[in-house]
């Protein structure tokens, strides 16, 4: 019986193998597979349009658009890389690239990209995709964290409206949110379901670095005065001033929008691209505006992990893939991608485009912040994902909710955190 069953299974395998597509192109054309993570209606359309334009102009190098998803991109790419079946061109975010770069799955783009593109993107953006001596992606879209505010409420309250030239300090921000609160309403709602990246990236405004690289190249965690400013502000707004509700601390950005539209919160700190949802979902007549995040002693500096385009190391057509990237990221095309995703382009030429300087939907405010954006602090720290999940996320969540105080937060981030990082740096 067992022998018969095995034989039947083997026969089924052979039958299925016969049905497999596994077709190879024999028309001499090169086909590049481009896995895009564009997901909003406008950004998918913009990306597909650009692929179509490339294909029309380059019949010998055809690009095939493959839709990926942010939710699962890491596992999916890891499996594809391991199996030697990765797409030629990979869309991802810079904070997801370290493992792939160090694992040898991504091509070093040094020398592959044209000077036009290399010089158009600022050095600080290139730093987000530089691992060791190599460059493993092209950073092309980024978003600062901004305050989305109920414009009518702010105007009526008479508070000073901040601008990129004259932002609120963190202390002033706290005063403003306290002034706006009362009668079941709050000055701000912090959606901190993922508290670590939001806290670390905003902490750069106050000079917080948290991760310090020694002369031996090893990284240690030190929670210093600059690192305290943002967490303490949030903690005090929730626990002392009652100017921020505790209920949104576990929420994602989208979850806070109904309360924002209903007038329960005057402001919500969100990524710049959330404007698309707000424009789409805001009730008729709802006035909203984009304000810069508060500034500390380092001004408006904040951390970002740009979206990136990389080339798989296994791709036999790296030069053609680089040529496609060059096309896709020409200033005019970068603007189309940025508008589609409601984000900022990294390219300096693209950033000058008038479409990105309109007051409508706060584009001008966001564009003014672009030069203050720096690599996210943990960008190249090995062991960061484990530190984030096992140490920093629970510690910050407990601190924000008032379960622990600042000394214990510091102790856990530093002592527990350094134990985790040490394992990756032996």
């Amino acid at each position, binding site marked *: 019986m067992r022998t018969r*069953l095995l034989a039947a299974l083997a026969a089924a395998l052979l039958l*299925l193998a016969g*049905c497999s597509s596994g077709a190879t192109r024999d028309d001499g054309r090169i086909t590049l597979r481009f896995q895009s993570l564009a997901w909003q209606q406008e950004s998918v359309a913009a990306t597909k349009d650009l692929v179509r334009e490339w294909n029309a102009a380059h019949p010998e190098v055809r690009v095939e658009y493959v839709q990926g*998803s942010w939710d699962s991109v890491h596992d999916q790419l890891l499996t594809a890389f391991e199996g030697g079946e990765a797409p030629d061109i990979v869309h991802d975010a810079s904070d997801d690239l370290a493992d792939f770069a160090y694992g040898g799955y991504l091509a070093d783009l040094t020398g592959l990209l044209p000077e036009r593109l290399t010089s158009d993107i600022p050095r600080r953006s290139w730093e987000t995709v530089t691992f060791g001596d190599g460059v493993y992606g092209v950073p092309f879209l980024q978003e600062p964290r901004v305050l989305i505010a109920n414009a009518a409420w702010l105007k009526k309250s008479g508070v000073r409206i901040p601008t990129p030239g004259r932002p609120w300090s963190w202390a002033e921000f706290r005063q403003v949110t306290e002034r706006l609160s009362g009668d079941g309403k709050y000055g701000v709602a912090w959606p901190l379901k993922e508290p670590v990246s939001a806290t670390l990236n905003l902490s750069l405004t106050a000079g917080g670095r948290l991760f310090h690289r020694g002369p031996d190249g090893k990284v240690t965690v030190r929670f210093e005065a600059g690192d305290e400013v943002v967490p303490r502000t949030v903690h005090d707004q929730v626990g002392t001033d009652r100017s921020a509700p505790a209920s949104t601390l576990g929420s*994602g950005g989208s979850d806070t929008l109904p309360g924002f539209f209903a007038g329960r919160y005057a402001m919500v700190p969100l990524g710049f691209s959330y404007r698309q949802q707000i424009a789409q979902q*805001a009730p008729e007549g709802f006035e909203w505006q984009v304000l810069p995040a508060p500034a500390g002693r380092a001004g408006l500096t904040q951390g970002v992990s740009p979206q990136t385009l990389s080339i798989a190391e296994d791709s036999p057509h790296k030069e053609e893939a680089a040529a496609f990237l060059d096309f896709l990221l020409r200033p005019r095309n970068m603007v189309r991608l940025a508008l589609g995703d409601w984000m900022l382009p990294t390219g300096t030429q693209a950033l000058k485009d008038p479409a990105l300087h309109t007051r409508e939907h706060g584009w001008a405010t966001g564009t003014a912040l672009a030069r203050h954006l720096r690599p996210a602090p943990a960008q190249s720290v090995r062991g960061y994902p484990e530190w984030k999940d096992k140490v920093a996320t629970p510690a910050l969540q407990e601190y924000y909710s008032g379960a622990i105080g600042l000394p214990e937060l510091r102790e856990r981030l530093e002592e527990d955190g350094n134990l985790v990082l040490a394992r990756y740096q032996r």
Partner: protein
Amino acid sequence: MRTPTAARAGQYAALLAYLVFLALPFLWLVSTAFKPPRELASLHPTWIPEDPTLANFRQAFDEQPLLQAGLNSLAAAVGAAVIAVLIATPMAYVMARQRGRLTKAATGWVVISQSFPFVLLIIPLFLVLKRLRLVDSVPGLVMVYVVWALPFALWMLSGYVRAVPVELEEAAAVDGAGRVRTLVSVTAPLLAPGIVATALFAFVTAWNEFFFALVLLKTPEKQTLPVVLTHFIGAEGVADLGPLAAAAFLATLPSLVVFALIQRRITSGMLAGAVKS
């Protein structure tokens, strides 16, 4: 003391409460699918959309190849269900009827194999399928689904086989029926509800499966519905809720239809078995 009528009313009330509990997420999904964006972001959401719209469905179909993905899912799920049942039925019969160390070990293995996490299996599986040239093909995915569904299908079916009185087979043998005749004419009809239930389990498992489909299917035209549904979700879990709900609602319909059609068959099969035994 409670009267039988009161007890029955209590039972119905409990059943109703349970049904409502089960139906709530689905009803909310349907409601969301027909709401315009502004109603989706309301602090006081309503069950019945105030301004119902089909725009979410239009957008979902415009943005993603839902029909093609649905056909792919259907092919994978039906293929997995049919093959899993074809393989599992004779194996389950042996496991149920032949008691011995080997069958005990096999049963143990079946249970243990259910605890393997997907992530542990996916890379070796990917490499095997690549060697067989079955990556990026629906038949390859069917094979994976069959392997994935088989242990539970075996476990499930062997329970059904054990429920068929062995005396019936012995009686058939006494009447002169051969082994094959007994299996086809006596055992198989009694097993029908179990086979249908097992097929349904394999179908639904394959229909809903996401991770293997995500990793194994690269060509957009071959992707299945669960994979395509994730295309409505952006970074940090931000979702295009309206089109996502519309697409998810459509994706649940085939399962519901299959359940509705087969549920009667399961029930009638059970009753038929009861009468015969």
